[in-house]
């Protein structure tokens, strides 16, 4: 009697969420996956007009210089940005958990960029920090007497990629810092006290206790960083608002151009099949990172 009652409740309570899931996640993901193996021009084309073409979409993509630039860019963002963000955020996490005054205030300020719209943050960076006339960077360089450097065109073609990366990473540090901190705070205090009694200095305590116990958190951070960078889009659009440029293009912005053809110049012909293939490539990257990092942690016998 009771189980049947529960059964009805389980179905009733789960159904809305499951229906939404099937409709907005499962069906689209499956269809995009299938679509990546077909030649499809317009995104709204009927199924009957799809033509199977095996791995042609993938081959076309890797034969297109702009897409190769996009992959190079996302690779650099992932690697250079990832190392910088994870190291800086770890450093901040360690500093803030070391018993400094005003910890929660400092933590809140460092996390702040994450609650502000990326469009607003990007506008601040482009139109204030990087502005060649009154920008923060060039004003500061002028102030310290580097007049030559003060003429730097931060959003010019040579530097735009790095300027974009710095602006993006600045916001991400706070997010990853919180995750490091939650890991550090779960380490029992006795570990540190015992090490202190044994005469370990603060660097030894960090490298021998904190770091090894943070392996799991490190993995979480790498996975989350990968998931968020693979969707790198707004910043690319903000730093190259009119047309795709090989300096700032990412797989997502390239896909947007391929499928929805937004920008005025016809840089790319409509090709939704290739757009779907980009999605599949990004998912594969996430899955590979997820599995590889899982293996690293599995060898670890310490579990907090």
């Amino acid at each position: 009697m009771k189980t049947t009652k529960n059964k009805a409740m389980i179905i009733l309570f789960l159904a809305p969420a499951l229906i939404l899931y099937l409709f907005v996640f499962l069906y689209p993901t499956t269809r995009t996956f299938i679509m990546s193996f077909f030649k499809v021009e317009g995104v709204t084309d009927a199924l009957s007009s799809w033509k199977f073409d095996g791995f042609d979409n993938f081959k076309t993509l890797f034969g297109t210089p702009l897409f190769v630039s996009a992959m190079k860019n996302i690779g650099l963002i992932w690697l250079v940005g990832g190392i910088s963000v994870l190291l800086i955020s770890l450093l901040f996490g360690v500093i803030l958990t070391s018993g400094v005054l005003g910890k929660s205030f400092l933590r809140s300020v460092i996390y702040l960029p994450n609650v502000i719209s990326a469009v607003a943050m990007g506008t601040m960076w482009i139109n204030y920090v990087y502005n060649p006339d009154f920008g923060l960077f060039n004003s500061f360089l002028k102030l310290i007497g580097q007049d030559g450097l003060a003429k730097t065109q931060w959003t010019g073609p040579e530097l735009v990629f790095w300027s974009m990366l710095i602006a993006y990473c600045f916001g991400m540090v706070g997010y990853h810092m919180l995750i490091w901190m939650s890991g550090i705070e779960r380490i029992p205090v006795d570990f540190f006290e015992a090490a202190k009694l044994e005469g370990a200095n603060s660097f030894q305590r960090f490298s021998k206790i904190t770091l090894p116990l943070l392996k799991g958190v490190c993995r979480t951070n790498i996975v989350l960083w990968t998931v968020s960078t693979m969707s790198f889009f707004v910043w690319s659009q903000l730093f190259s608002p009119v047309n795709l440029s090989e300096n700032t293009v990412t797989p997502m912005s390239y896909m947007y151009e391929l499928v929805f053809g937004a920008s005025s110049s016809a840089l790319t012909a409509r090709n939704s099949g290739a757009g779907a293939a980009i999605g599949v490539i990004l998912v594969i990257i996430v899955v590979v990172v997820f599995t590889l990092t899982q293996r690293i942690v599995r060898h670890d016998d310490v579990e907090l």
Partner: protein
Amino acid sequence: MQKTKMKEKFSLKKELKHAPGYLIVGLWVIFTFVLIGWIILASFSTTREIFDGTLFKFATGLHFENYVKAWTTHKVSSYFMNSLLYTLVSCTMVILIAAPAAYVLSRFKFRGNGLVQNLFATALGIPAIMIIMPLFALVTQAHLNQSKGLIIFLYIAMNVPFTIFFLSTFFHNLSTTFEEAAAIDGCSPMKTFWRIMLPLAQPGIITVTIFNFITIWNEYFISLIFANTAKNRPIAVGLYSMIQSMRYTGDWGGMFAAVVIVFLPTFVLYIFLSEKIIASVTGGAIKG
């Protein structure tokens, strides 16, 4: 107790040991303040003062008209109201759909429970690019494209998995004694949920809702594709199109005023509720 501990902690020698840490974090924090502070000052200034570098003097007074201009002539008011509508409706519906599901998943043993939980967990890692194309085809066929209802529906669906994930942990940590007591009193499980368990989960619901509010308010990609008309644009997409035009017309004061209007709601929310927001980030990420 806490106070004496603080006093004990404050000694110059100890603080000196932290000096390098204070310096590094301090510089970062100062930069953040300069960045946001300057934008706020510039939003009350004129284009000429911004370029002359005299915006701190406010020689010509505070230019509130920047805000008036952005709010009315650049239609920020319409984008703002759209975002408010999308965010409030989606946040409410997300809870009504996710809370019951999370409760059932964390409380009842049944076949497929683990599978369903894994399904929702995978949704957290699926990039938006994998779902937009078929959805776009579907809604175009159904002539639903570029409507307010559609974007709200998508926001609800996309935020349910994280919310289920977050609330499951929360329900899991609530004691079962409440349900046992309710069952003895003859309260049906469903009634127990709505009358007893949902109110008990209020702290978790508030935390996750603040987090959803910020996510939806700042959402850009989905609305760029599904709600990119003058009538339906939410504030992030609206700001983007506005900035492009303002840069060419050279109205910098107005542009910074628009930026401030966009970040003000989440910024104010954050000032009052930063502890809760930070708790939701760590609570959601630990298991992820």
